[in-house]
């Protein structure tokens, strides 16, 4: 039996200070009351319509991601540490992207090759040499963290394209405040509600139109997209228009939207569609989700795009391995947040180790994302592992391997009692001309099945509210 770090209880069964308020609340609240509250939460989510779409035949096309009513808690010091680490990491990632699409100092320094960057699927050749506002590429980044010990936080993955989930962070909080107002009063939780204002300020900082109010819009693929709720939620919270491709038009290398008052100039687009769909003249010709001429307007500096096309390059696994080195290289600092130890199979010694330890490692495609083409050694049969070993030997440079992580557990309501379930954390990092901002919190995903380490919503994962305490200790 492996040992997992329990976020609420210490090894001796003592309640950790950060969870004191939660522990007292759980002790005095009967499971039946929690169950009632859980049902009420579900009704609230349905009424507001926080659903994600699933495309199966028949049945309900809109599902809820299960929500757990017991919050996950981080104390003020833990958060301060994470915050410093996240600012540092995302700053370095932005420096890397600017470098990769600019001078390539990192290649000159021998850390990556030109060829590696140029042939990467997420590399966007049309961005090479383009000047982007403030030199920032990933304005909204989601950094996936896992915890394995008191002071052990690891970065599992960087999401620099168009990370989603922030609406859950905000709605989870709103629902919790409605269900348990007294608990907030007692524990002292840092608010997250200013995120939309921070996001708007970040987006506005990307433009300096002369003599007019900067016009920011959110570009969505439309109501059948699985994250549509989040798109409309963010546009609404920021008080900006939610546009689709049909609403925008490019004239004289400037972007406009069609309004009841004629065409209106757009200065910043927070786009929630993939690079490939932005502009049929440059990328996929069959796309109707973007607007023809958008990239030209962007290159001319007439419109800002967040995130910049090609920012996905930073999500790459081989790039990931270099992030600690990048922090030293670009910032001259020691990395604050740790990477998960990763074996690059391109390296012969590493390959030999990986082949020897397949039953305890997770092997990922270097360029894959979202868990595709992955081998989870401990859960695979010998036959699957042998087949995978063959693939690995044929093309070792396409793979990296990592140990399976002992994700921390956090009390989660399991019908009749609170029981430990594994969690991860995705904070959202905003970078603009006005600096880097992070609201204290993030999206905690939880594997609801006992013993499961899979937090993905498509595989039985749920979410929790994430509480960052104003001060250390968990209140009374």
């Amino acid at each position, binding site marked *: 039996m492996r040992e997992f770090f329990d976020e609420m209880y210490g090894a001796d069964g003592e309640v950790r200070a950060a969870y004191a308020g939660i522990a007292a609340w759980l002790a005095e609240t009967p499971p039946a009351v929690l169950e009632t509250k859980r049902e009420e939460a579900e009704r609230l989510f*349905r*009424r*507001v*319509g926080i659903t994600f779409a699933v495309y199966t035949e028949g049945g309900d096309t809109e599902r809820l991601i299960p929500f757990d009513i017991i919050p996950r808690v981080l104390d003020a010091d833990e958060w301060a540490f994470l915050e410093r680490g996240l600012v540092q990491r995302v700053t370095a990632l932005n420096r890397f992207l600017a470098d990769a699409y600019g001078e390539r100092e990192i290649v000159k320094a021998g850390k990556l090759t030109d060829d590696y960057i140029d042939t990467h699927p997420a590399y966007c050749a049309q961005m090479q040499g383009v000047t982007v506002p403030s030199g920032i590429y990933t304005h909204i980044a989601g950094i996936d963290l896992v915890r394995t010990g008191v002071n052990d936080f690891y970065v599992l993955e960087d999401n620099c394209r168009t990370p989603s989930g922030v609406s859950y962070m905000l709605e989870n909080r709103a629902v919790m405040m409605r269900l348990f107002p007294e608990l907030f009063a007692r524990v002292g939780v840092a608010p997250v509600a200013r995120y939309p204002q921070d996001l708007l300020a970040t987006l506005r900082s990307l433009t300096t139109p002369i003599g007019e109010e900067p016009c920011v819009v959110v570009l969505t693929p*439309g*109501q059948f997209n699985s994250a*549509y*709720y989040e798109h*409309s*939620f963010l*546009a*609404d919270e920021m008080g900006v*228009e*939610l*546009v*689709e491709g*049909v*609403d925008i038009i490019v004239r004289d290398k400037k972007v406009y*939207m*069609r*309004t*009841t*008052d004629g065409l209106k100039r757009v200065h910043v687009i927070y786009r929630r569609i993939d690079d490939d769909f932005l502009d049929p003249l440059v990328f996929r010709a069959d796309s109707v989700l973007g607007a023809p001429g958008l990239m030209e307007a962007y290159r001319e500096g007439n419109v800002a795009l967040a995130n910049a096309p090609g920012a996905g390059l930073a999500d790459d696994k081989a790039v990931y391995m270099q992030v600690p080195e990048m922090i030293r290289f670009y910032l001259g600092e020691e990395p604050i947040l740790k990477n998960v130890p990763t074996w690059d199979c391109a390296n012969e010694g590493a390959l030999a180790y990986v082949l020897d330890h397949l039953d305890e490692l997770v092997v990922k495609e270097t360029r894959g994302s979202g868990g595709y083409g992955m081998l989870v050694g401990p859960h695979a049969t010998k036959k699957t592992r042998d087949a995978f070993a063959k693939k690995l030997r044929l093309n070792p440079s396409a793979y990296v391997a990592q140990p399976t992580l002992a994700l921390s557990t956090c009390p989660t309501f399991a019908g009749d009692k609170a029981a430990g379930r594994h969690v991860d954390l995705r904070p959202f990092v905003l970078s603009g001309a006005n600096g880097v901002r992070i609201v204290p919190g993030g999206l905690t995903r939880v594997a609801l099945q006992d013993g499961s380490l899979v937090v993905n919503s498509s595989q039985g994962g749920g979410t929790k509210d994430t509480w960052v305490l104003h001060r250390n200790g968990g209140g009374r």
Partner: protein
Amino acid sequence: MLSRAADALFWLARNMERMDNLARLIEAAQSMAGVSSEAEEWRSALAAAGVDELYDETYNAVTPDLAARFLSSGGANPSSIINCLENARVNARAMRTALTRDMWEAVNQGWIESRKLTENNFSPALLAETLDWVRTLSTRFSGAYETTMLRNENYWFVRLGTFLERADNTARILDVKYHLLLPQESSGVGGMLDYYQWTSVLRAVSAVRAYQWVYREEVRPWNVAELMILRTEMPRSLRACYDHITYCLDQLAEIHGGKRGEAHRLAGAIAAELRFGRISDIFQTGLHETLTTYIDRTKELGDQISNLYMR
């Protein structure tokens, strides 16, 4: 605001209003059960909803149960109550940012409830209860937008959709019912049956009490026509609807720096006729002809509004 948002709000309001009108129409038809020919009564309801031909393609004969189901839950009928609600939610969801949270919750909550309805909820025994639910839903929606929307463009497009749809419905109901009633009128004005049938016209626009308050006499065809076309105090009359429509269009023109279009001219012309018209002149021209013209011009107005703001 986005043209697409104006379009979505306009049609959201139209669908919610249509749903509400259908509920009233079905209730009126039901209330005639046992008094007149049921088949005729339901046929007129189908015609007033504009789906009589579609009904005939689907079924061989008009029965109360089939007709009521077709109007309320009929999947084959794109303008059934349930489909109106479905369309309203699609419009609302397409432009969630243009709605207040209360408006969205009213529509979404209604839609969630509607998904729990079964065939049984539309059976004769439970239909009345279901129709009550529809009217509550519609009231919840209009209450939500009246009390929570900023008085900006969004609001005026919602109002415009509501009153354009209502004007169209009132004209249709009166036209269809009047047709149905004409033969009886010549044979026995003032008879018991006649009384019930004219009352059913009023009932379809929820104006039985209103008639009494305004006229204080027995139900007479020309009074009913006047009440539904020309009387300003009757909230579903063409006159009242057009007063609102022109006001909404004026507000929009003001927001857009005085920009006006054919929609403004047309709405103004119709409103002026209604304001200064006399019921005797309308009967002279022919009630049916007059109503058909209003129905056509209201449709034309919808197209002109779309031309001006929504593309």
